[in-house]
Every structure is written in structure tokens, then in C-alpha cells.
């Protein structure tokens, strides 16, 4: 079966790396995901951004078939993950949120098994490359319990990359990770993007989405509220805030600058007396502001 026979997610000549359509997932009475739809473009980094319990892991679990959707469908590279799981999964790399233990096996053995699961029995060249890339090569004879927290997380990423997947799913890759490793992981994701890998990452760190993602889907209480380019979200929903301190007045006044507005515009608009102004303080908008506006408006 070729990809084009599975028509969903196929537009003209490009096949969507990931297409999620009207996905709902209930756990008993809990509605973890409600009618979520989004589509990834080839080669982009897409962020699912939302607070804890928003339903991010549930969506990822449905993509990798660890959970069965209550309704809706998911296509990876044009293949329905329910109907054609093996074809869909062979091009996906998955980094789970929680560390996985492997008991008796060392890093090298774990990667060798993992390669085999994807049909690659002679994959030494690739696994060695990944071990070097993630700075695990010197630790390749250690068991998981002998690795530091950061190394464990890098091992999870190494496992997800043995088969050179076209789509990489990262579930909260930097949760509970120190600043240095976070920076390294961000660099690594940028490198993968440069290699043409499509990345879906979930995060509740706004800064992470801002740094890495081309587009962001804002999710809260199981619903995707908005899918937009990161820059658009920042431009549209954040204003620069301006704090003006007047002479002889103790309390400063706060104003907001809309996109394209200058401080001069503000002074004219608000008819402020320039001679009375003692100090002006401008702070730039962040994705955090956008997030607040969309989710808590």
C-alpha cells in the first residue's frame, strides 16, 4: 500500500507528517481531549502549549497507539495509526515524558534492541553517531540506573532517533531538567529541524515554545483554543507595557502599547503632559502574555 491510497492528510503532492482530526479521548468520565484538530507542516517544529493536565500527553499517547482514541482519527505520513499502525509507526520517534528503566541492559544494548524493533539489525553506524551527538558515547556500557538524570533523558532521545524518524514527538522534553541541559536540548532540536525532521513537542514552558516553535497550538482543559505561528501570537496578543511616573505623583500609571504603536502615539492619545513625566519604563511582550489572554480571557 502506498501513502497516497490513504487519502486523508494528503494535499496535492505533499503528505502531512501528522494530521490529527477531531480527536477526543475520555478516561471514564474524564474528558482529557475534546475534539482536537491540527496539522503539521513538513520540517516545522510545532508546540502544544498548555498547563499540566491540559491533555498534551493524552494526544501524544493516541498518536503512538499507547492509548486508543475515543473518537477521531490520526494520520502519520498519510497512514491511519489505527488501521495501518505499523506503516504509521515506522517513521515516528517518541520521547516519553517519564524516564524508562531497562533493568539489566546497558545503553548500547538498549539502542541495539530499539534499532531491531524498527527492523534495523545492523545499525551501529547510526547509533554510534547518535551516542556521540548526545554525548553518551563514553557512557555506552552503563546501565540506566548508573546514568545521571540528564543522561537518562538524553538516552530517551537517542532511542527515539535510531531509525532516523521523519516525525519526532517530544513530550515535555525539558520538564525537571537543569538550565544547561535545557539549552543543549534546545540546540539539538534546532539541529534536527535543520536536518528536515518534523517535531511535535509539548511543553508548559512558554519560553520553550517561544524559542523553538514555528507554530504553537494553545491547549487548555482538553481543547485546542488556537493554532497560530509563534510570532503572530506574540504580535497579536501581546502589547508592550509602559509604566509612566509623573512628577509629584507617587503611584505610576500603566499603559499598554498595541502592535505598531509608539510611545509618542500613546502620549498623544492619552493627552499626557510631557513636562510632568519623570520616567518611562517599557517592557516587551512575551508569549506568556498571549497565553494568558487566550486561555484566561
Amino acid at each position, binding site marked *: 500500500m502506498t501513502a497516497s491510497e490513504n487519502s486523508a492528510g494528503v494535499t496535492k503532492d505533499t503528505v502531512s507528517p501528522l494530521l490529527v482530526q477531531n480527536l477526543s479521548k475520555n478516561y471514564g468520565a474524564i474528558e482529557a481531549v475534546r475534539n482536537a484538530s491540527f496539522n503539521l507542516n513538513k520540517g516545522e517544529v510545532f508546540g502544544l502549549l498548555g498547563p499540566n493536565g491540559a491533555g498534551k500527553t493524552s494526544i501524544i499517547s493516541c498518536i503512538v497507539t499507547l492509548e486508543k482514541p475515543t473518537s477521531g482519527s490520526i494520520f502519520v505520513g498519510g497512514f491511519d495509526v489505527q488501521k495501518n499502525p505499523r*506503516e504509521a509507526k*515506522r517513521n515516528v520517534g*517518541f520521547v516519553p515524558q517519564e524516564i524508562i528503566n531497562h533493568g539489566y*541492559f546497558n545503553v548500547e544494548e538498549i539502542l541495539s534492541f530499539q534499532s*531491531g524493533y524498527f*527492523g534495523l539489525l545492523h545499525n551501529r553506524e547510526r547509533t*554510534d*553517531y*547518535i551516542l556521540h551527538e548526545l554525548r553518551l558515547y563514553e557512557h555506552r556500557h552503563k546501565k540506566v540506573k548508573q546514568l545521571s538524570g540528564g543522561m537518562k533523558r538524553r538516552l530517551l532521545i537517542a532511542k527515539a532517533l535510531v531509525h532516523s524518524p521523519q516525525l519526532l514527538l517530544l513530550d515535555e522534553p525539558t520538564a525537571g531538567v537543569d538550565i544547561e541541559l535545557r539549552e543543549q536540548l534546545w540546540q539539538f532540536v534546532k539541529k534536527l529541524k535543520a536536518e528536515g525532521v518534523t517535531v511535535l513537542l509539548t511543553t508548559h514552558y512558554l519560553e520553550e515554545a517561544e524559542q523553538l516553535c514555528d507554530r504553537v497550538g494553545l491547549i487548555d482543559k482538553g481543547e485546542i483554543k488556537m493554532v497560530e505561528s509563534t510570532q503572530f501570537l506574540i504580535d497579536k496578543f501581546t502589547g508592550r507595557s509602559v509604566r509612566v511616573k509623573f512628577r509629584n505623583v507617587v503611584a505610576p500609571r500603566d499603559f499598554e502599547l498595541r502592535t505598531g504603536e509608539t510611545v509618542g502615539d500613546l502620549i498623544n492619545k492619552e493627552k499626557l503632559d510631557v513636562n510632568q513625566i519623570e520616567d518611562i519604563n517599557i517592557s516587551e511582550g512575551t508569549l506568556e502574555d498571549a497565553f494568558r489572554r487566550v486561555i484566561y480571557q
Partner: protein
Amino acid sequence: MSSNVQSEKFRGSNVKGQADLFLGPFYSLLRKEVMRFLKVSMQTILTPMVSSLLYLLIFGVSLGAYIQMKGGISYLEFLIPGLVMMGCLNNAFQNSSSSIIIAKFSGDLEDLKVAPISYTQIILAVALGGLVRGVVVGTITYVVGAIFCYFKADTVIAIHHPLWLLVFIVLGGLSFSLLGLAAAFWAKSFDQMAAVNSFILLPLMYLGGVFFSIDNLHPFWQSIARANPLIYFINGVRYGILGVSDVTPEHACVVALVTLVLMYWLAFRTLARASFLRW
């Protein structure tokens, strides 16, 4: 362009066309199953050896001196094939069940679900892994028993029908490995797994004719005993080694085959409904 090719190579290429989704996952998982029990061979091989030695000492020597079996064989001789098969079946079961329970606990069972592996591949690899351990333990038990018998009773335990022996070892090892797999995928906790062990496996084992011949039982208990598939596996192996048994090898073989098919069906059904999520 050429730099592109170079960086592709440097990245450690793995051309998709080389991927063998048929043999790759199966072979890899089988290798993992076998390596796992070899890494803990203290528990998985040495312990069963010690326990069969204890059985030989207690039942074969101290108690067995007072028991005479039909066909002129000593109780010690009678006991050895039963111990061989009990070791084989028990270890086949323990191998697949503990491998899966541990994988559920540590989370690497999720790796199997996320990878492009079919249920059939998982079942075949895990079942064969269990069989390998069953054969290793069975062989060791036989060697220990034969040496023991030689020095204690001056008897050589030769294998009378090696092909029948092989048939029953393979059918039995696979069946119990599959049962272990089904039980472990079904279990939602350590307690449930322990319950299968003590309420299903152990009674089947101890009432399976390792220690007694059903001919010595009251007809009522005989008919009960015949409902236990273990009787056929153990008597099959006894026929393979000693050339005597309570049931004919053909009869035993049919029961063994039917059991294997049932166990495969049970394993497949359980797997298809099972959650691979970690505990």
C-alpha cells in the same frame, strides 16, 4: 551536493529499504529475552538446578526407597523425567511472565507498542525465549539427575525416544511460555500475577504426575487427573526418556498440540486487549 552526501553519511545513514520489519523486531526481541535470563542466570538457571537436586534427594532417595514402580523401574528413575519437564515448563512460564511484568513495571513495555511490531512477532519471540530457558533448565536437570542416578543407584538413564522427547519439550515449553505471556499481559498488579502462580500453575504442576503414576490412583481421581494437560506433557517426556508412560505418546501428542493452539489463541486475545502502559 557532495557535502550533503557526506553529512548524510556522517549522520549514520540507515536506508529505509534495509529495514526488515519481518525478521528485525522478532529477532531483536528474542535476543533480548534470552539475554535477560542469561544476565540473571543465578536466579534463572542455578535456582532451578538446586531445587531439582533437593527433589531428587527428598523424594528420590529418602522416600523413593520404599516405592516400586511398574515395569521394574526405580522411583528415582521414574522421578527424573518428571523433574526435567517440570523444570522446563515452570521456567518457560516464569521467563515470559517475569519478563513482561518487569517491562510493565519499568516502562519499557511501552517501547514495544510504539514500535512497528506485530502481536504475532511479540508472541513468537517471547514464546521462543521462554522455550530456550525451559530447554536449558530441562537439560541441566537431566544431566544432574543422570549423574545422581548413576552414583546413587548405579543406573544409566539413557534416552529411549529422543524425537518424542524433543516433540514434548518443544510443545510444552511453548505452551507454558504462552500461558505466562497471557497471564502477565492480563495481570494488573504483582498480586494478580502471584495468584496465577499459586492457584493455577503450582496445582497443575504438583498434580501433573511428576511424583506419581496415575495408574496408582483411585479411578475417580484418575479421571480428574486426566483432565490436567500436564499429565500428557509429563508422561510424553517420560516416554521419551524411559520408554514407559501412563498414556501413549500419540494420545499425549494430540493433547499437547491442542493445548499449544489454545495457548496461542489465549495469548493473542490477551495481547490484543492488553494495555502496554506502565504500572
